[in-house]
């Protein structure tokens, strides 16, 4: 079973940064104080973040919820520094505030009848599946992870995924860690021996197309985490459109996703 629900309505708050550190120059690992989101976040859901003191960077931006600890009332995020906003965010200190809206998007709720799931992720796309691995493990589902990056230092969220996975297969383009080559080749050899009920992918369109192929061949049921330029994250702006594969029209990533059965959305080449 794969079922998604809208979940609890989002809140908008000034959230305190509890912990923030930069790793490998490119990534921000951050914990935010947000008891409501920590309590209600579902796998697949995300938050919108805006810097409170930056009206030149006006729109909030979406980021995956990596962990949600309801006991501590904290959520963790892993963010790749790519532009002005994330660069400024990387200079924030614990105690500072961020404007936070969430939880947003449809969350994955049901794994009934599944005994194993695969995660095929690349780069910061790994941040999207950590909470899913966590909740799946809690339900006794075997999680097999295929973690990929261009190079060793870009293997993101490995420390989260290793304790949650039965096995983590690693692939890098330059061979600095694990298998040198495409992670889906490791997935394919794995599938030759062992079935996976569902495979979730994030972070690479090539991965998504591969999963779409496996799905259409009936080898697994594939799901893809998508992103899109969005302004609001909650269905008001209609910005984050993604083309439907089987009919005319569009889904909205924020309202209908961000996780989609891989067959229903168009994956661009």
């Amino acid at each position, binding site marked *: 079973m794969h079922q998604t629900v809208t979940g609890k309505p989002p809140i908008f708050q000034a959230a305190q940064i509890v912990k923030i550190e930069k790793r490998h120059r490119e990534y921000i690992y951050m914990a935010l104080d947000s008891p409501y989101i920590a309590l209600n976040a579902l796998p697949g859901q995300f938050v919108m973040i805006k810097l409170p003191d930056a009206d030149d960077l006006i729109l909030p931006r979406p980021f995956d919820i990596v962990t949600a600890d309801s006991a501590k009332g904290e959520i963790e995020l892993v963010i790749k520094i790519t532009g002005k906003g994330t660069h400024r965010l990387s200079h924030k200190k614990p105690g500072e505030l961020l404007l936070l809206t969430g939880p947003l998007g449809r969350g994955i709720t049901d794994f009934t009848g599944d005994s194993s799931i695969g995660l095929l992720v690349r780069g910061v796309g790994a941040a999207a599946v950590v909470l899913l691995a966590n909740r799946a493990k809690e339900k006794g589902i075997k999680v097999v992870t295929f973690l990929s990056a261009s190079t060793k230092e870009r293997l993101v969220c490995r420390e989260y995924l290793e304790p949650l996975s039965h096995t983590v297969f690693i692939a890098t383009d330059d061979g600095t860690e694990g298998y040198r080559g495409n992670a889906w080749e490791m997935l394919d050899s794995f599938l030759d021996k062992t079935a996976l009920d569902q495979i979730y992918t994030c972070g690479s369109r090539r991965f998504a197309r591969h999963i779409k192929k496996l799905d259409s061949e009936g080898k697994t049921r594939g799901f893809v985490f998508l992103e899109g*330029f*969005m302004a609001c994250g*909650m269905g008001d702006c*209609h910005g984050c*459109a993604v083309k439907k594969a089987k009919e005319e029209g*569009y889904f909205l990533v924020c309202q209908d996703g961000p996780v989609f059965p891989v067959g229903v959305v168009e994956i661009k080449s």
Partner: protein
Amino acid sequence: MSDLSVTIAGVRLPNPVMPASGTYDYSERHDNFFSPAELGAVVNKTIFLNHKPGNKPPRVYEAPCGMLNAIGIPTAGVKDFIENTLPLMRGYGVPVIVSIAGNTSEEFCKLAEIITETGKADMLELNLSCPNLNEGVEWARDKKLLYDIVKLISESTTLPVIAKLSPMVTDIAEMGLIAEEAGASALAVFNTYRGMVIDINTMKPVLGNIAGGLSGPAIHPLAVYSVYSTYKRVSIPIIGMGGIASWKDAVEFILAGATAVAVGMYNFVNPMIMIEVIEGMSRYLHEKGISNIRDIVGKAHR
């Protein structure tokens, strides 16, 4: 407590704040923010008569102090709107402004008639100025087209008609006057400016539709001046909009001559903004010792 209520074309709004069309959906996603029942009026995302999928992505992109959008008005059509959205909007107990558009005058008129017949709308807003419709007519940029469409629809509905103007004209005040002469009961000043962003790496426009409407604080002073100059020429009420990011921006519109204001893109940035604007206006009037917001409409002219 100062009186925030205003009247537009005989319809009383409990306060002058409403969403700009296309920036606020009536959904349970807003349950933790505020109820639309606290607004001055509710406005829908513009509908067309028939289903339209909207533009191809990317549809939105950040600009300095603003954003570009080329959403292209995805709409499920009027039947779906009457079944699913209109009853929700009516249920909040505040005036309902239904935003409509058409690609031909016949289609526009038919839609106006269908909405009028439901008996559930208090006003019609004619979206004459969407900058993102490739096959659409930019009614508000041509004097004759503007006059004819406003006259035609005003004569075919019993509801007061709000004409939403385009800033992309030589003299917006004159366009406002033309809309008034054609029978509009109020003006919405204004829609977005067409703009574009080019990705220097791909060397192509960023937006799927190439160009998009610019909104946000970047256009606020332009909108305030448009309201100011239009107020001098027309005698019908103006709804001011364009880049409201705080209650202060909204008060500027009122002082420039707007009877009410609409908050647009900032709803995406701060989902509480409309309530903050209402509360801020109320505090401002109290601190200034002004008992009635109507007393400061157009005050910057005096």
